[in-house]
Every structure is written in C-alpha cells, then in structure tokens.
C-alpha cells in the first residue's frame, strides 16, 4: 500500500494531492489556534521564530513555530527513505543569503508568503489579489533572466554531516520551543513568546508538528512548489505544479467555508493591510527573489531537509531578513506599510535585478 501511495505521489497528480492536503490542513490549524488566515505561512512563521530568538523585538510576533521544523524533518525522513538525501552546496551561498533576506522583506511588506497569499484569497481576503499578481510579475521577471543565462552556478556534493545541519537546527528549535529557556539578564528573553497578537495564537504543539511532518513528507515526494507552479506554467506551459496551487486554493476555500472562516472583502481582514500598491510591490520583490533562488520558501525548507545547504542558507537569510524587517520598520502592519518598507522594497528589487543581470554564465551544449 505504501509503495502504491508513493507511486501516486510521484505521478503528475502528486502536487495536486499535496496542495489539497495543505489546503485542508492550513485552515484547520487556524481553527485549532493558529492566527486567522495564517494556518501555515512560511514567511510569517519564520518571522515569529526570528522574534522568539530575539532577532527582532516586535512583541506580538514571537513564537517558535513547530510546523517549520516539521517541514525540514518530514522532508528529511522522506528523502532518507527514498534515497534522495543528497548533501550538496556551493552555488553562490552569499547571494542566496541576501535573496533570502530580501524575499522575507518583500513578504513582510505584503504580509505573507505565497502559501499565505493563496490562503488569504481562499478566505475571501481580496488584498491577496494584488499580492498574487505581484508574485506572478516577479516570477515573470525571473523567467526573463533564466532564459538569458542567469545562474548562481553549480552546487557540488558534500559530506553527510553538512546535509544534517538544517535538520539539526530544526531539532534545536523544537527543543527551545519545549524547554523555553531564558538566557538574557534578569531571566528575560530569548526565548521570547508573545503574550498578545498573532505570536500568542497557536495550535497545540503536537498537532502543529504532526502537520508539519506530513506536509514536509508530501511536499518532498511531490516537489510541491508555489513559485515553480507559476514559473513552469508561464515558461513551459506545464500545468502539473500549478494544479497543486489550484487544488490548494480550492481545498482551502471549501474548508474555510465549512469552518465559518470565509469573509469576503478588503477591509478588516486578519493580519493584512489594504494598500494595493505595496501589496503588489512587496510580492514582486519576493517572487523575483524566490525565482532567482529556485523555489518558494516552503520548497526551500523541503530542499534543506534533502541536504541542500544552499537552501539552508536562503532560510537563514530569511530569518535575518525578518529581524531587519522589524528592527528597521520595514514590515507592514494592519495599519499599512512600515515607514521604510517601500524604500526597502525598491532597494531589494534593484538588488535582485542587479543579481539577475550580473550572474550569467554559459552552459556548454
């Protein structure tokens, strides 16, 4: 039965299965305690983790989200079981770090990663639409670079120990979540946990971790990727990843309706703002950074579980980016974009365009 299931996951319909499962489970996690329309959000959860570790001091968004550890460890288990654990690194790690920084800044100007953009849409938050259009524009700009020889260079096989760094990091995060030690003076901080706001809202740890492990496993087997979906559709007219996104939105829409979490409109949406321009621009930046790096943030977590050290560097860049976004007043809030969010978005887009133009190489045919 297990091998039959694996064959199904490895088929063209695999991403749609993962999309449907995530689409059902994300609203359920919100129902069980996660913030509204944030059942799963890779960027928001990364931001919460950065906060819990004291990398920023926005008191309302600090929590170690076990879902993300689950992504890495679920992917690791699947990769080990099917002999796809391949430690590799060396493809312009420093650039990938900064792509992660700016991808996170863009996502926090919009207030969500691509996964959350689709979840917000499925729950009736119309502010997601300019975000998704921006994401697509960012991906299309990335495709232009890809057709013109953009490459961050090759990665090379590495030792097993290197591939275990991010899984070990995931385990350490889980330990910090459960033990919640304090290291700061007077017993205060890190680890910080929000007492109010989105950071204080979370599903039970065991359930959140279980969902993370399951999604990590499924996404590893099916290569589910919300940025690759748009990219392959536009570049190659290949629908198979995009079907995953469609299944995701459809399943989340039905689940949100069923749980009474559907609320159509722009005003008063949870953890969202109504500024169309910067919802759009934030995701242009994110979409471009993700495309240059090779996948959506969820996919980066999955690849880091497969031993991809460069994906791990991108994730660390995202955590640092979250710290910067809140410390430098770049992140948006329900009131609107942060004071310096728009300027940082422009800087990020210029950075990504420069990388796109400068990092070109010819692969001999």
């Amino acid at each position: 039965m297990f091998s039959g299931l694996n064959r199904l996951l490895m088929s063209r319909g695999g991403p749609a299965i993962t999309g449907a499962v995530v689409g059902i489970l994300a609203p359920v996690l919100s129902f069980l305690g996660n913030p509204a329309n944030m059942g799963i959000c890779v960027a928001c959860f990364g931001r919460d983790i950065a906060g819990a570790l004291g990398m920023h001091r926005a008191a309302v968004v600090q929590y170690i989200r076990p879902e993300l550890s689950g992504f890495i460890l679920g992917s690791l288990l699947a990769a080990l079981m099917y002999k796809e654990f391949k430690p590799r690194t060396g493809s312009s790690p420093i650039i990938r770090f900064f792509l992660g920084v700016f991808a996170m800044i863009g996502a926090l100007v919009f207030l969500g990663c691509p996964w959350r953009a689709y979840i917000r849409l499925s729950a009736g938050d119309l502010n997601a639409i300019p975000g998704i259009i921006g994401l697509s524009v960012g991906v299309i700009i990335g495709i232009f670079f890809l057709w013109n020889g953009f490459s961050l260079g090759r990665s090379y096989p590495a030792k097993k120990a290197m591939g275990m760094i991010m899984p070990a990091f995931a385990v350490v995060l889980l330990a910090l979540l459960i033990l919640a030690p304090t290291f700061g003076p007077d017993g205060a901080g890190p680890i910080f946990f929000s007492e109010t706001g989105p950071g204080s809202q979370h599903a039970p740890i065991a359930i959140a971790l279980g969902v993370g492990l399951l999604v990590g496993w499924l996404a590893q087997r099916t290569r589910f990727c919300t940025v690759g979906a748009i990219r392959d559709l536009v570049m190659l007219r290949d629908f198979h990843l995009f079907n995953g996104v469609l299944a995701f939105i459809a399943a989340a829409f039905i689940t949100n309706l069923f749980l009474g979490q559907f609320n159509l409109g722009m005003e008063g949406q949870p953890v969202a703002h109504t500024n169309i321009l910067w919802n759009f621009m934030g995701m242009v930046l994110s979409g471009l950074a993700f495309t240059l790096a090779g996948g959506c943030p969820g996919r980066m977590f999955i690849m880091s579980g497969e031993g991809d050290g460069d994906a791990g560097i991108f994730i660390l860049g995202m955590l640092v980016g979250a710290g910067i976004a809140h410390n430098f007043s770049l992140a948006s809030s329900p009131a609107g974009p942060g004071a310096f969010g728009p300027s940082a978005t422009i800087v990020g887009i210029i950075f990504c365009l420069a990388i796109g133009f400068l990092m070109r190489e010819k692969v001999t045919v």
Partner: protein
Amino acid sequence: MNESSTVDARGLSCPQPVVETKKAMNVYGRGKIEVLVDTVTSRENVSRLARKQGWEVSSEELPDGGFKVTITKA
C-alpha cells in the same frame, strides 16, 4: 546528426536543467542528447519536458549517484 551532444546540468538549481535541455533541443531539433543531472527531481523534470516535446526518454543511474537522461528524436 549521428553524434550525441551532452548537456551537463549537474548541480544547477531548478529550473536550469530544464532550460538548458530546452535550449539544446531547440538548437539540434532532433538526434540524441545526453543530459547529466544530479537529483531525481531534475531527472523527472528533464524527462517530463522531453516527453512533452515528443522526444523518447531513457535514463540510467551513474556510479556517482547522478543520472544520465538520454533523449532521442528521429
């Protein structure tokens, strides 16, 4: 064209193996192209593209753990 040409896409990020394969298919139009990749995901992606464009696909695992995907079109 009798000789085969080789695309070495080992270690390249998604979707570059597919991009380079597509470029090679456009250049040669037919014949035999060998694509070297290092992950199962890249092998699947290259194979899917080639089949979609009407090429025959076969692949073998290499001793270093990578794969050689051979695509042919008469």
